[in-house]
């Protein structure tokens, strides 16, 4: 019968090409979403960066954008706020790297068998679990010169309690307390310190899982050969932690480049734009209340994308190379 014949040939085609078809079948849903939410918007945003647009459509639904060519990029070049943001991005990137060694040392410290260790481990991991917004708020209060921990300690050291003209309690300080988040010099460091807290926890957990897989025989052998302390760490433990280190570096670089929520919560880029990074400056120029310059914002996004692309291609290339050498 022709129908069953046809079916049979279908099944055999499927079974013959199963290994080719099935991966695509599983990939397609993800690819569609990836295209809609990531790939296409990237090109849209690059296109938009050549326009000047306030985000509005006229009554008939036509966009009011005007083609300006490379004008937005020329403006970026002469915009001091762009350079401040870029400088802060570099600062974030370099200081955030501290999370990797700090995470490693906390992991080494916690990698012991002591009663209640699970509890301590979870306490160290805690900052990574809570939302970045909460971390930002907490640190914001911590730094507050009036009612924060910093302000409180300062009052203990340099201020005395008096009463003001109305008889209410007030403080007279011999030196004004440091206002970390309102100082254009220190505010960025203050936010990075807050950002490091959860990032260190993240690196720590990566290293803790890595340490579980360290070969005990090699350690034993090393110990017999007289390796201990730093040498043991450098020549025996760290090489085995290479995969963990690689992942920790990747997540830290990406975490530093996309730093946004902490800045939004703690300073909104202030005082006077001195804590902006590219991602926040992009948000501010494009979609915040005083922005509405979508073209200009897109040009910032494009620059940030190119920087990210550089790191991501490097990481992908590394991973590709590693996999090739394994197989």
């Amino acid at each position: 019968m022709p129908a069953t014949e046809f079916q049979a040939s279908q099944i055999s085609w499927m079974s013959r090409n199963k290994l080719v078809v099935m991966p695509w079948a599983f990939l397609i849903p993800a690819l569609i979403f990836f295209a809609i939410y990531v790939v296409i918007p990237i090109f849209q945003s690059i296109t938009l960066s050549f326009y000047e647009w306030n985000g509005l459509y006229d009554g008939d639904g036509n966009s009011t954008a005007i083609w300006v060519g490379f004008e937005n990029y020329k403006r970026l070049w002469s915009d001091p706020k762009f350079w401040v943001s870029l400088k802060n991005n570099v600062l974030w990137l370099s200081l955030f790297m501290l999370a990797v060694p700090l995470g490693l040392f906390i992991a080494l410290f916690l990698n012991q068998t002591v009663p209640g260790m699970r509890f301590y481990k979870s306490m160290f991991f805690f900052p990574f679990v809570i939302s970045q917004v909460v971390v930002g708020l907490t640190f914001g209060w911590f730094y507050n010169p009036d009612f924060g921990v910093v302000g409180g300690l300062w009052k203990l050291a340099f201020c005395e309690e008096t009463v003001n003209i109305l008889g209410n309690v007030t403080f007279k300080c011999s030196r004004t307390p440091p206002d970390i988040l309102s100082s254009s010099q220190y505010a960025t460091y203050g936010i990075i310190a807050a950002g490091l807290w959860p990032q260190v926890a993240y690196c720590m957990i990566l290293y803790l899982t890595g340490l579980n897989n360290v070969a005990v025989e090699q350690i034993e052998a090393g110990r017999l050969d007289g390796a201990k302390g730093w040498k043991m760490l450098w020549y025996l433990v760290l090489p085995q932690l290479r995969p963990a280190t690689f992942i920790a570096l990747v997540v830290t670089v990406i975490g530093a480049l996309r730093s946004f929520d902490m800045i939004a919560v703690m300073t909104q880029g202030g005082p006077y734009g001195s804590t902006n990074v590219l991602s926040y400056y992009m948000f501010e120029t494009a979609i915040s209340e005083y922005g509405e310059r979508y073209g200009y914002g897109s040009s910032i996004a494009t620059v940030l994308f190119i920087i990210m692309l550089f790191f991501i291609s490097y990481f992908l290339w590394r991973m590709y190379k590693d996999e090739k050498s394994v197989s």
Partner: protein
Amino acid sequence: MIHNTKTLLAGVAAAAFMVTGALADDLRINFDDLNPGPKKAFEDMVEMFKAENPEINVIVNINDREAHKTAIRNFLTADAPDITSWYPGNRMGPFVDAGLFEAVDDVWADAGFDEEMAAIKPTMTRDGKIWGVPYSYYQWGIYYRKDIFDLLKIAEPKTWAELMASCKVMNDNGVKPFTIGTKYLWTAAGVFDYINLRTNGYDVHNNLTAGKIKYTDDRIKQTFVNWKQMMDECGFVDNHASMSWQDALAPFANGDAAMYVMGNFAVGGMKDAGLTEEQIDYFQFPEITAGLPRAEEAPADAFFIPSNAKNKEDAKKFLAFVGRADVQTKMNAQIGQLPVNSKAEVSDNKFIQEGFATVSTAAGIAQFYDRDAPAAMAKAGMEGFQRFMLDPSSLDEILTELDRIQGEVYK
């Protein structure tokens, strides 16, 4: 039984109406204040309108202020209501330029608003046409601790010199003259606007925010010289850059600081902070350049008709109603603000009374720096003001940078 059948039929009819969707007589209004006072005032006003126009079916959609600011950018194109609330001055500029608002000159002419709301007319005008009808505004000025002034025997200063002298007395007695919280920037713009209005007058304010005067202009520099004097001889609270305007109420309420350059909405916050009406009072920002016509800051809220509205005829009826003196009297008594219509009456609250006396006699009404200047300029300008307050020595750098941005923003 018959009665029951009737209500049943009415119910069925109503349901049928709902199913058929928007009728020609539907009037959809988007309003942007969820705070209990203004929301109630608006709803009562709509009830009044319904009673006068029973044939119009009013559908109200009230949103939060910040959400409204985002939503309006979409709904004006995609799904326009017949009326929406928005702000005059430069804030309506982008929508007018994109052709999203309907001109309402005929409403003004027919209802006689040209005379009754003459003071605000320039603010509602762009490209020679009028674009909306304002329903409320409020005064700015200096709010102060009357008990501290009485204790130090200081009278309300009328001139700049008197203000400086009063500040000296306060400083000598350990009271910080001014409180302010500049974390969200706009509070500093209020101070700048007032010193600029008093130093150079209304036209310079408008020309500056319209991009016709440079920031490095000598007149603007003089504004900053006066501001510097205010910082040196009066002084603002420390750490103002890490405080919101509400945070800055704390030293004011505690009696550590005595004055606050603010809008009338701050009175509510002051009362919430535990102060009574006897402890606080208001005076107009003192004169700086003698003989200059006194202009005031009074941001207004208004209603507009989107050009995509379906029922413009009834929308215009509603705008004419909103501008009427008796409607404005009633609504503003409830909100606790000033009616824009000069024929309207104000409530007997002392701040409203003083505010009305201040604003209705002003030679010009400014909206506020961030509403008169385009968004990108306003942001840069306000950051510049904050920077100046933190580091006055960087003034030249700030002004040069503002000139550069001015060159980009205005074309």
